[in-house]
């Protein structure tokens, strides 16, 4: 993975930069010992690593502002970081950068059930946001599989989704306001505990901008009352096509489950071996979850059963207890872990129009054979967000490159059928160079101009999202 050549002047000035940072931050907030900064050299795209100049861990918005103002003045690139779980290399440092980590900003600032929001410091983990309101019967809806670890700041930067976003939407649909510090150190309040924007929708623009427009330090998030109950069903089919047809029929029937998850045979086998969830040994498996009162769930599942039966399932299993529900979800939730046990894997994230599902799965299988690498599929079928997992052996020469080539082919396929490169993980460094497959130069230029407005010197996470060739003149000038 190509990264811009580090600025030799900045590398040579490391000691001075660190000393200046120590003037505006408490001592323990500036880390420059390489043994300690090593922990920040990569995110979950761990094949790529790079040590930064230093890491800063501020505790307040004022400290973030002071350090950004200084780094702006010194012309030092800054890589914002939440929990470092990005699968796209979004929080991977560059050698001449300072990593600004939000890990110490994890407090709850305000909970307000009357107005249905919670305000938190943005370094707080996703799951602990729900944790703060759960005992009162509320929850924060976006639920990425990484929710135990990932931070709200990373969720906002990537506009992360989760299994339940079919009903509740992704981060951007649940974000009401943000405190953001610009690269120049200016503190902005955008949105708040009310709906929609007074002027241009800057909140919508910031969400999903991958840490390139500003550093988010606080967030106002929508919270929802917990439904009375939820129940999953598991449906097994003898082919991907049939499972795909069943998904389309469920949606056409006017039922909107909170989640429709899909796993194919390689994935089912691997998770079975890993966690023994008791899944049927079949080609394709759906997990469909419905919410509401007991009677409401019965009504919805009754309709789903009818539809599923028309397609002659290998198995239709309805959870009769909380324990059975947990077992139905167990395999899905351990899918990534299971794949990690048997192999190295690369997780893709393209989205396709749901009606293209059978075709795309068939094509992926052909590509997998051409490349000689196995691909397992586990994804959010209701919204067409696929997660093909390419299995490879990182220790075998050439496999990493082969795997990346196959990944690129699959993502191009997603774009060809009318979809996109990434549904929830973001572009980062990983898909940077594929952007011109999806966008024409004018489309990208419009996005670059947005960054020009927020960060004219191109210091915030500058080597991400866009093909390096397109941004070079902006980064070096």
């Amino acid at each position, binding site marked *: 993975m190509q990264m811009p050549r580090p600025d030799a002047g900045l590398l040579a000035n490391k000691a001075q930069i660190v000393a200046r940072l120590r003037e505006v931050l408490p001592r323990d907030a500036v880390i420059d010992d390489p043994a300690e900064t090593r922990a920040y050299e990569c995110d979950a795209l761990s094949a790529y690593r790079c040590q930064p100049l230093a890491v800063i861990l501020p505790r307040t918005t004022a400290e973030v502002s002071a350090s950004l103002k200084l780094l702006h003045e010194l012309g030092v690139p800054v890589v914002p970081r939440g929990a470092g779980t990005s699968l796209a290399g979004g929080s991977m440092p560059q050698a001449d950068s300072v990593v600004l980590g939000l890990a110490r900003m994890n407090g709850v600032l305000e909970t307000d059930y009357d107005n249905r929001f919670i305000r938190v410091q943005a370094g707080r983990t996703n799951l602990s946001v729900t944790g703060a309101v759960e005992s009162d019967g509320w929850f924060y809806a976006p639920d990425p599989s990484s929710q135990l670890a990932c931070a709200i700041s990373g969720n906002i930067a990537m506009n992360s989704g989760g299994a339940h976003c079919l009903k509740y939407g992704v981060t951007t649909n649940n974000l009401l306001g943000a405190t953001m510090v610009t690269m120049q150190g200016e503190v902005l309040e955008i949105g708040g505990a*009310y709906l929609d924007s007074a002027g*241009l929708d800057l909140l*919508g623009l910031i969400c999903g901008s991958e840490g390139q427009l500003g550093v988010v330090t606080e967030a106002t998030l929508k919270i929802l009352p917990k439904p009375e109950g939820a129940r999953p069903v598991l449906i097994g089919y003898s082919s991907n096509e049939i499972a795909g047809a069943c998904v389309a029929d469920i949606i056409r029937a006017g039922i909107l489950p909170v989640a429709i998850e899909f796993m194919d045979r390689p994935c089912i086998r691997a998770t079975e071996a890993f966690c023994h969830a008791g899944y049927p040994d079949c080609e394709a498996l759906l997990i469909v979850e419905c919410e509401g009162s007991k009677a409401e769930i019965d009504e919805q599942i009754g309709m789903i059963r009818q539809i599923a039966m028309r397609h002659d399932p290998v198995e239709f299993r309805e959870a009769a207890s909380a324990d059975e529900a947990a077992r139905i979800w167990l395999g899905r939730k351990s899918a990534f872990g299971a794949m990690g046990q048997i192999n190295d894997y690369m997780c893709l994230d393209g989205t396709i129009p749901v009606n293209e599902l059978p075709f795309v799965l068939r094509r992926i299988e052909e590509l997998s054979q051409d490349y000689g690498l196995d691909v397992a599929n586990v994804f959010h079928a209701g919204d067409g967000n696929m997660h093909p997992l390419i299995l490879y052996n990182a220790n075998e020469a050439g496999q990493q490159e082969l795997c990346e080539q196959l990944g690129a082919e699959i993502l191009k396929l997603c774009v060809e059928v009318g979809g996109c490169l990434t549904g929830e993980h973001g572009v980062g460094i990983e898909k940077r160079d594929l952007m011109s497959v*999806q966008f024409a130069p004018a489309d990208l230029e419009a*996005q670059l101009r*947005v960054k020009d407005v927020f960060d004219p010197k191109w210091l915030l996470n500058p080597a991400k999202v866009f093909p390096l060739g397109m941004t070079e003149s902006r980064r070096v000038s």
Partner: protein
Amino acid sequence: MKVESEAQLAEAVREATGPLMVRGGGTRPVGRCVGEALEVAISGISLYEPGALTMVVGAGTPLAEVEAALAAEGQRLPFEPGQWGAVLGAPGQSTIGGVVAANVSGPRRVQAGACRDSLIGVRFVDGRGDVIKNGGRVMKNVTGYDLAKLMAGSWGTLGVLSEVAFKLLPAAPTQATVVVDLPAGAAQVALAAALGSPFDVSGAGWVPGVGAVVRVEGLAQSVQYRAEKLASLLAPFGETRIEQDGSGAIWANLRDLTPFVGKTGDLWRLSVKPSEAADIIARLGGEVMLDWGGGLIWVLLPEGSDARALAAPYSGHATLMRGVTAAVFEPEPAPVAALSAGLRAQFDPRGILNPGRML
């Protein structure tokens, strides 16, 4: 000037020598309208996949045509956009592009999000005359910056929409409304109780002559169950009843502001923190309607009133929908205003697209 294709639109913008007043159906004449009229008549549904819950449509397509096509498949736009032509005295056919440019969202906003939340893709012509696309036709997409959100609610000041794409919802087969006999000033607490319940409320407002209203939608048995639960939950706030047959009309009236049609005065729209609603409407006086659990206040005030001064202090923003005073849109804090101005300068360097519309 009327354009019927994206190519014509791009040419019209490129060759413009002065300000353009971008319009769809002209039914939302909010803000300063100056310049040569540029009517976007790029019409037609280019893609509708009911099984994928997505639609792509020309920006000049009448809203009514979009809604009819969806209804034929038992689906709908999640955000329930209102028609303001009657109340704003601007009759005509609302277009879907106008809905997006104004980010128009009706009562279901509290459950299904705003217009911008359903908008999954746009094509537009910026002030340079360049055609730009963003987003696409799939429900989940984080590829690059989200310019679709930026375009929604930008009132044609950053670019002229040529095509918009939405994610859709199945239309609910049944609905019911729980009506609580309450004055406007007492409504918000009851609405908050309803919205804080697990009964999946899809509308919460206050309508003159009716009272506080709470809507549930879905499968018949479920609607019945939730309406009854809500009626007993809300009983402590006032006398309650469940409206079945009349439910649809209540929400259409609130959505389209029907009770205000034909009445004189300035019409203001305030989006605020819901719990502030009671104090704000007490300070405002005038005739009000409430939506979004009290978070959206529609108020008719005597001509020339400054709702911002009357309502203060409030967290949120006020827009003058009909009437004449200095600022139609809520003035932004300086650093935010600077970013907005910077974006306008980038997207429309000549300042020809609806100049001053959002002041």
